[in-house]
Each structure stands twice: as C-alpha cells, then as structure tokens.
C-alpha cells in the first residue's frame, strides 16, 4: 500500500512512498479542434503580440532586409506550428538555436532581444530575457572549473535566451588543452535537452563564425537558423544617425546633415569601422562639441540652441583635420 495522502505515520503500516512521484502528463492547455474546424491566424492573440514585436523590429532597425525576412519566416513557422497543435497534430518542439553572423554594430544584440519577445509571445520561452555571455563567463581557469561555470550561465539563462557573443573564442584549435571544447560539449547536451526551454544564440563576425562552425560540425548541425547581418550602406547609416539623434531629442540642421554624411564617408574607409556603433559614438562626440560651443557662447540659450547640432559640431571631428591620404 502506498501512502500518498495525509496522515501520521503508523508503525505497523507499510511505508513505501516513492521519493519522487511520477511526473503527471502535461495537460494540454488548448482544446483540440475538430477536423473540419477553421482557424483564423489573424484573430489569434499570440499573432497580435508577434505582429507588434515585428513592427517594433521594423521601426527600430534600418535596412537589414534579409534579417527581417528571416525573423518573419521563423515567427510564421512557429505560428503555424501553434495552429497545428490546436488541431491536435503532434510535432516535436522545433529547434530554435540560432547563429547571428555579422560585422560589429549591425544590430545582432537588438535582434536577439526582439527574438526573445517573439518566442515568448509564442510560448517557446517562459521569460523574454536575454542573458549575454562571452568566453570569460563560460570557460574556467583550471581543470574542473569550466563545467560549473558553464552550468551556472545556463541556469541563469534558463527559460530565456543564452546569447553567446563572439562565440568563436570558445574554440581555440591551436591550444589542445584549452577548456573551450568542454563548454561546447556541455552546451551540446543542454541544447539537445527537449524539456529545457533554453534557446542558444551564437553571435560573432561572419568569417570567424564560418570557421568556428566548420571546426565543430556537431554544433553546426544543431543550429538550424543561420542569419547573416550585412553591413549598412551609406544612406542607411545616415538614416540611423537621424533616428539616433531624434531619439536623444536633438536634430541636425541642414548643413550638419551634409557634414555628417561626409563624415560617414570618411569614417567608413577607416579600419575598425563598426556600423551603427560608430555612428552612435560620432553622435555622442558631436554632443560633447555642441556642449562646449554652447558654454563658450556666453549668452542666454533658447530651446533651439539646445537641440540643434550644427555643422561646426561635426567638423570638429579629428577625421577632418587629418591630411587627405
């Protein structure tokens, strides 16, 4: 007799309570629809939330047409999958691990944040949260240190997205005693785990990501979604700058926009140009120069003075002072 109810212990009675009761079968939340039922995807409340997030992605990010299309495709796939489940059509949980390959400042982290919101709206993640880690957070310093560190990172990301930035640093083929390989093995078992609702995103620069995946075929085969982020073109960067400036409650006057455009042309030729991040830094520096200019004006300021970035603020950049090469 197994005592599973309440009651005090009785010395005579047999006492064989299992240490862990068998897990109850997961109850199906949605009622199964009939064979001839019709489902209007556009009326689904999850669709509305996903559409909202996609619209946000569309508005926030300039360009990146390929990425947006891919994200939309994944969202549609999951929506259809959800609809199939409502009809009682069984299918396994889709593998959602992704790789984001793109130059610096092309919006990989931002897309990961939006991806978390989309997956959460569709019920594939319990929380719309992204836990960003780099090699330092995963790889230990001595034998036996790596596994606990990696597991800790996985535990913190549980229920959300584990975003591994510059993932290729995990794998150092030139040093065979490197602990990075151990991280990859632990990640693989965790990614295979059907029950865990963890989604892993590997991110990094395209060429090195390609070598990374080529060197780890096991990893590559478990990441079905490879998304490439292209570098921004010049007009896109100008548009990004406008958005950034507007978001900070500033504006360029006409000359300043010209100046910024020519600044970008010069900046893009430089090594280590990092797309939107460079634009942000340039805007930050023009704000500095604007502040200095305003203080030196030595007269009462009006609202217009405070929000306008002039050509002078842009031309102050050291890029314009260099002799042309």
């Amino acid at each position: 007799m197994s005592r599973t109810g309440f009651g005090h212990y009785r010395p005579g009675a047999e006492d064989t309570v299992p240490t862990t009761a068998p897990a109850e079968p997961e109850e199906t939340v949605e009622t199964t629809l009939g064979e001839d039922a019709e489902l209007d995807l556009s009326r689904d409340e999850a669709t509305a939330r996903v559409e909202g997030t996609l619209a946000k992605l569309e508005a926030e990010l300039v360009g990146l047409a390929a990425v947006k299309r891919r994200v939309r495709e994944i969202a549609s796939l999951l929506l259809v999958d959800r609809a199939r489940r409502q009809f009682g059509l069984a299918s396994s949980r889709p593998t959602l691990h992704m790789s984001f390959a793109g130059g610096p400042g092309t919006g990989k982290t931002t897309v990961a944040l939006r991806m978390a919101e989309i997956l959460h709206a569709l019920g594939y993640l319990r929380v719309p949260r992204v836990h960003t880690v780099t090699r330092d957070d995963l790889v230990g310093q001595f034998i036996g240190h790596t596994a606990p560190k990696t597991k800790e990172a996985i535990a913190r990301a549980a229920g959300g997205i584990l975003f591994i930035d510059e993932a290729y640093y995990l794998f150092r083929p030139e040093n065979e005693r490197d602990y990075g390989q151990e991280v990859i093995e632990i990640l693989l078992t965790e990614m295979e785990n059907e029950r865990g609702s963890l989604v892993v995103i590997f991110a990094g620069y395209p060429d090195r990501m390609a070598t990374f995946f080529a060197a780890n075929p096991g990893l590559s085969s478990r990441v079905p979604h490879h998304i490439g982020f292209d570098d921004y073109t010049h007009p896109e960067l100008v548009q990004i700058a406008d958005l950034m400036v507007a978001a900070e409650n500033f504006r360029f006057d006409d000359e300043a926009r010209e100046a910024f455009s020519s600044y970008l042309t010069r900046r893009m030729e430089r090594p280590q140009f990092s797309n939107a991040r460079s634009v942000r830094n340039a805007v930050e520096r023009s704000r500095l120069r604007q502040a200095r200019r305003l203080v030196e004006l030595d007269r009462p300021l009006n609202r217009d003075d405070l929000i306008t970035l002039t050509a002078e603020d842009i031309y102050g950049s050291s890029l314009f002072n260099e002799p042309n090469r």
Partner: protein
Amino acid sequence: MKLRHGTFSYLPDLTDDEIAAQVRYALDHAWPVSVEFTDDPHPRNVYWEMWGLPMFDLTEPDGVLAQINECRATFPNSYVRVLAYDARLGRQTTAMSFLVQRPAREPDLQLTRVEGENRTQRYAVQSRATTEREGAWQP
C-alpha cells in the same frame, strides 16, 4: 520512520514540478537557494553537507532542479533538502527548508540509556542510520 523535517513535511512528498514551483517562490523573493544532504536524520543534526555553493542570481528554477537531480543521483540513499536564505537585514535566516529526497528505507531513531555524572541514568536519542552505516562504531 518517515522523517518529518522542514516545511511541507506533513504533506505528500513533492513532485519535481511542485519543487520547481516552490523554488520559484523563493527566487521571486530574491532568496538564494541551496541544496544540502545527509544520511543522519537525527533532529539535532542541524548542519547538513552542502551540495555546492548556494545559487545566487537565478531567476528560473531550472538550475536548482539540475543541482537537485545531480545530488539525488550521487547520493540516492541520503536525505536531500532545499534551503532558501533570506538575507534581508532584520531577518537574515533560513526562510524555507524542505525535503526533496528521502532514502527508500528510513531507519528510525533509538532511545538509549546513557551513564551520566555520578552514575545518574539519562536517555539519549540515537539515529539508527548512523549505527547501521558501514564501518560505524558499535558500542
């Protein structure tokens, strides 16, 4: 003897999902959770062996459950409990403590006679699990 120890001890044993829900409750209150185990169910055995360090900065119970399962796998014949510590100033104590595993067979406690000072007769509680342990000292 079924050990009644900690919170929920008079309820049926918790399932993994219920444990996860309780851990989530602790994490929602920002109480770091830790796992401990012992083979000695003596009521005065307050300090159990720690299974790893307390787990800080978690928001989801998955990591705790993974540790519980590792501990269960390593010590299938031990008691395992989960502790939640409230570090708030003014409380700074264990906020929650409950068993998540008990051995298949739970040896009971034994009342033994003990010789006291000046040949006085006292009684002591001894957990049979410790005397049954392999290589245990037999009086």
